[in-house]
């Protein structure tokens, strides 16, 4: 006590803590100082998609094997037109390249449309909506320790349908909607994520997909038939198949490709024709939602009970609009400052929310109010770059998100088959993903990860 020496520190002499961020983040901060050009919504889209042509074209982040699909189609058709058509035009009819040409054009156009069209992505809930839903869930008489159920039951055409709450998009999913973990979006009338086209197949592009596989099966069968005829004609007169193949080597390649693909494509077309006729999705068929496995009398509530009407409604129904409004402008006061709560804040919220996504109900209410806390505490660093520059800093973006989205995706996959105790599953996985979350070198996120309840509550009414 008396022996200790306390040196009085002159506060004026203290180095002032620099409010400016470190240099490499500072440069990105400076970028924001530039006169703000109005930004479009696709630039801050929270899902894992890529955009081209100023938001006109949307693809999944992983293009899958789309280049392979396109390559196979182009190569096979090219070889067909080069090697087989001249011979067949001379010996049979000139309709053959015309038919082949029409089918080829159909296939390529519908393939590109399936890949580049918004499948029916549902935009994520705004923070106000999410808080409102959370309030409603909490209000359903939950006094017990167990977290409230994250499902809602509705009656559709005398059939009980369970609507699940999506933790990533913060809303109750409409019927037939599913969250694709590869694209990190909820997709309406989700059929499946097709790696061959590199996109999800959903409400808006199912008709393109169906037309693609049907026309592709016609094209493959047509080319297979033409090549067989061509080789048979060449081998006539005792010349033999080997001679024919030597004369037209391209036909050998086509034969192999077509032989192996025609069965699978025809099978797929047949399967999807059945789905269209019964107004089912691949997702529902695989899960057996309406097959009455549980012994109850369940029927598909969406079917029109008439094959013709089912086909017409799926394939020829009105084309719904894209809900994500990719080319729309962000509200003016948002491009610079995040004053109101429209699209930009959910982008930030979802990035932070991915980190804290499985903390349970209280955590979700806190995370809905987290953006204000995040922004005021640590505006510099990752949250800034993560949501404003998805293209310029892919390394920053991709590092934390795949790890977490995999865990989120796994959680989604895990919780979908079993509705019995989703809370238990999510709690078990929440520990894992929470650990994963904390490992990310991101001090800005770590600080508000567990805000004290009074703080969150005090911000909530003002939000």
């Amino acid at each position, binding site marked *: 006590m008396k022996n200790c020496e306390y040196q009085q520190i002159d506060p004026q002499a203290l180095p002032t803590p620099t409010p400016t961020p470190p240099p490499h983040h500072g440069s990105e901060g400076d970028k924001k100082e530039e006169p703000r050009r109005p930004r479009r919504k696709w630039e801050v889209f929270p899902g894992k998609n890529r955009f081209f042509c100023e938001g006109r074209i949307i693809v999944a982040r992983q293009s899958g094997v789309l280049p392979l699909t396109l390559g196979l189609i182009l190569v096979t058709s090219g070889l067909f037109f080069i090697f087989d058509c001249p011979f067949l035009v001379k010996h049979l009819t000139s309709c053959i390249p015309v038919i082949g040409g029409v089918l080829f054009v159909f296939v390529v156009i519908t393939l590109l449309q399936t890949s580049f069209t918004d499948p029916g992505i549902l935009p994520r809930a705004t923070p106000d909506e999410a808080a409102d839903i959370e309030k409603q869930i909490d209000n359903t008489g939950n006094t017990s320790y167990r977290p409230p159920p994250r499902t809602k039951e509705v009656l559709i055409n005398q059939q009980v349908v369970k609507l699940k709450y999506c933790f990533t998009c913060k809303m109750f999913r409409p019927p037939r909607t599913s969250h694709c973990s590869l694209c990190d979006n909820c997709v309406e009338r989700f059929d499946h994520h097709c790696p061959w086209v590199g996109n999800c197949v959903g409400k808006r592009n199912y008709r393109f997909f169906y037309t693609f596989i049907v026309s592709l099966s016609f094209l493959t069968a047509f080319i297979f038939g033409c090549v067989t005829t061509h080789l048979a004609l060449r081998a006539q007169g005792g010349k033999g198949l080997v001679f024919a193949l030597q004369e037209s080597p391209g036909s050998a390649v086509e034969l192999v490709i077509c032989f192996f693909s025609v069965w699978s494509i025809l099978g797929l077309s047949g399967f999807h024709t059945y789905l269209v006729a019964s107004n089912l999705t691949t997702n529902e068929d695989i899960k057996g939602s309406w097959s009455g496995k549980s012994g109850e009398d369940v029927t598909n509530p969406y079917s029109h009970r008439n094959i013709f009407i089912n086909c017409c409604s799926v394939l020829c129904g009105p084309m719904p609009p894209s809900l994500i409004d990719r080319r729309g402008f962000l509200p003016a006061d948002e491009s610079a400052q995040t004053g109101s709560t429209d699209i930009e804040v959910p982008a930030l919220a979802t990035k932070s929310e991915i980190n804290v996504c499985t903390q349970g109900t209280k955590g979700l209410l806190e995370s809905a109010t987290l953006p204000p806390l995040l922004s*005021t505490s640590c505006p510099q660093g990752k949250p800034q770059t993560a949501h404003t520059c998805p293209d310029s800093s892919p390394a920053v973006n991709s590092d934390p998100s795949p790890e977490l989205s995999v865990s989120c995706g796994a959680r989604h996959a895990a919780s979908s088959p079993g509705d019995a105790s989703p809370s238990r599953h999510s709690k078990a996985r929440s520990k894992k993903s929470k650990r994963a979350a904390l490992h990310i070198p991101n001090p800005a996120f770590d600080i508000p990860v567990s805000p004290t309840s009074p703080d969150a509550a005090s911000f909530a009414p003002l939000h």
Partner: protein
Amino acid sequence: MCFVSRTCTVVGIYQVRPQPAVSSKVFIQRDYSSGTICKFQTKFPSELESRIDKQQFEETIQTLNNLYAEAEKLGGKSYLEGCLACLTAYTIFLCMETHYEKVLKKIARYIKDQNEKIYAPRGLLLTDPIERGLRVVEITIFEDRSIGSGR
């Protein structure tokens, strides 16, 4: 004390806004009892009791529901559009405005009209559901000026 950071979203607390303060927001959720068609619940929310007639509100929502039903109607016209599109490998969607889009424009005009005539004078604002991904009809309740702005 003022947070000057550009990323600050707590602006609502510290910054004095010239426009009327938002008191709260009410969300009218979707009604899935008829399937996946776009339809909103007509249940009158309690927060609006002091601001608007129940009948007026129900009429607005019902008209919106009817307009969406018209957009999604399966009938001769939509089948014709669909078949024509299929025959052209769906390329006509690039040049032509679909029936749905035409009805959406009609809905936008209707909502603007309702806001001007009925909702704005009562300190309410309807947000077009398309801006919320057709999930909800968002009704913003502004603070009553006569009471005075306050936090």
